[in-house]
């Protein structure tokens, strides 16, 4: 479970778009270099067909596939798979000018619920995270779909799950000056749209959560509900507005932030496994 912070530094402080992926059929860890070549050829071919990603810019896309052995929950999980697309301008002849234009990685952190029930020859990496242009995501996704007969779906995060996240993360202990615990709501069905940002001092949010949580290391739905109800009640006392009737669209803490459209940013490496475990769970429930 100990993740080397150096290897995972690239994951932090980036906005990742989330997808659920069904198990990959016929995936072989030993063939990563072959896959990289095939994906590279696929992307080049798509560009020739006129589905150019960057119009007017002559770019060669180089593909790299690697395994991240440390990124997993237990030995039952598959090691994470990282896909990186770099560009090298044809104009420049120097080989050291590669620029990373897109990254995506597949992972599973305590995803036993899924891998337990899956036949041989299937690899379970239910969570897919991307950073970079949508057009590249499309290309990579299409190739994986064709090659491994899997299916990608955007992973939306419900208000219920967002409230779990904010309660959990608000309770995390942090040594340095932490940023506020922020909840962003959108009020639907009004003549003029209204957004409400409710940001609480991190010490005060943690103090509240600490009195709500009864057993350390364990969180129940009831405790999350009480935490949220407290925040709603405090807000209602001042503004007479029922936040419970609004749509929770984004939560932000010093640990991580998450948006209902399935976009996540992880800020602290020590909580990375915890966040990934939660997201793996969400991905699996979307698949099943």
């Amino acid at each position, binding site marked *: 479970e100990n993740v080397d912070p150096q290897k995972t530094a690239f994951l932090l402080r980036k906005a990742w778009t989330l997808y659920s992926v069904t198990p990959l059929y016929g995936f072989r860890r030993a063939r990563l270099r072959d896959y990289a070549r095939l994906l590279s050829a696929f992307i080049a071919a798509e560009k020739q067909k006129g589905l150019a990603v960057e119009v007017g810019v002559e770019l060669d896309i180089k593909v790299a596939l690697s395994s991240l052995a440390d990124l997993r929950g237990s030995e039952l999980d598959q090691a994470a798979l990282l896909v990186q697309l770099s560009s090298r301008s044809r104009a420049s002849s120097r080989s050291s000018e590669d620029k990373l234009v897109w990254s995506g990685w597949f992972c599973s952190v305590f995803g036993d619920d899924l891998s337990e029930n899956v036949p041989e020859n299937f690899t379970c990496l239910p969570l897919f995270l991307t950073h970079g242009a949508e057009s590249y995501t499309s290309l990579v996704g299409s190739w994986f779909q064709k090659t491994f007969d899997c299916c990608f779906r955007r992973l939306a995060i419900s208000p219920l799950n967002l409230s779990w996240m904010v309660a959990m993360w608000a309770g995390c202990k942090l040594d340095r000056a932490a940023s506020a615990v922020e909840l962003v709501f959108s009020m639907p069905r009004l*003549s003029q749209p209204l*957004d*409400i*940002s409710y*940001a609480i001092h991190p010490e005060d949010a943690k103090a509240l959560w600490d009195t709500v949580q009864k057993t350390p290391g364990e969180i129940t739905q009831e405790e999350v509900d009480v935490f949220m109800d*407290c925040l709603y009640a405090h807000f209602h006392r001042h503004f007479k507005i029922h936040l419970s009737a609004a749509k929770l669209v984004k939560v932000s803490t010093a640990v991580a932030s998450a948006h209902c459209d399935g976009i996540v940013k992880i800020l602290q490496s020590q909580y990375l496994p915890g966040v990934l475990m939660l997201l793996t769970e969400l991905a699996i429930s979307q698949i099943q």
Partner: protein
Amino acid sequence: MDETVAEYIRRTLLKIPRDEIKMMLQKWGFLSEAQLQTLNFHQIKDNISQEVVQLCEENSADIKQAAALDIIYNHIYQNKRMWSVYQMKKSGEELEYFDITDFKKRFKGRLRSALKNVTITFKEYEDNAIWIRVAWGTPYKKPNQYKPSYVVYHSQTPYVFISASVLKSNMPLLCQALIVASNYHDIREMELRSHSLNSLKDIVFKRYSQNFQTYTPKPLEGRNVELENADIRMVHENRSEKERIHRLNQEVFGCGPQPKLEFAQYRLETMFKSDPKMDVLDKKEPFRCLVKFSSPHLLESLKSLAPAGMADAPLSPLLTCIPHRARNYFKIREKKGLFPGSFVSP
């Protein structure tokens, strides 16, 4: 013509939508009607600007004229800028006759005595608004024409609307020049900001339809209350509740259109109070929060909350006081003593 002036005019023109360029040049009045006739307004903006700059060259435009064009642009597109409101205070009650020439002279004098490199431009508008544009330099550098400050002053009032440039260090000097020029002795920034300059004016000049505290509404019989999407199947209790909410909303917000604000911010330093049964946080220190409401038209959306069932009616005075307290930034602390449930906003 100075190259920097030519470039500045060119860039100002590029900001203007193509079908508005002719109108703006006419307002500007620097090019003659005959010169305007020679321009082809159907080509791409780049070409139009080049041609206009050419004509400006013929007329030997200098920075004064370029600044005048910029004021005209910013007057028409005033809502692109963020405006803050300042209030000036007089020591006595003397009603002095306002002399615009005196004002300009004193304003320019005060600024120039502190800073040699400034470009100051004035323009008066029909609604008694005096627009002032100031481009700031340093003792060693010419004024940066691309980051000017704009001031709008209605001489019959103590209010000044300022859209500062990014260079905030010039604010104290600007404020000083304003009170010296207008014969006031102090100026303070109000907690009121918006993109809609007219709405800010509506609020401080009290030009919107208000709720007057002493007004008692007449009973509703004989008056048909228009309810949106009135459902015939609505039960009587629901209908009277809807009418009650509607009436309370009217009392609080008035019947007319609301001034247009985009946000309101509340820094809460009040205590967290909960049902003792819940066995949660019971600290003696404030529960610190920062709440921000945003909307393209904040007051209208707040007005629609209770009818939509998202809020109680009447809505909290913290929200409804925004127009008549002329502020949209608040710091809320617990009021000590008699009424522990009420709030104080300094």
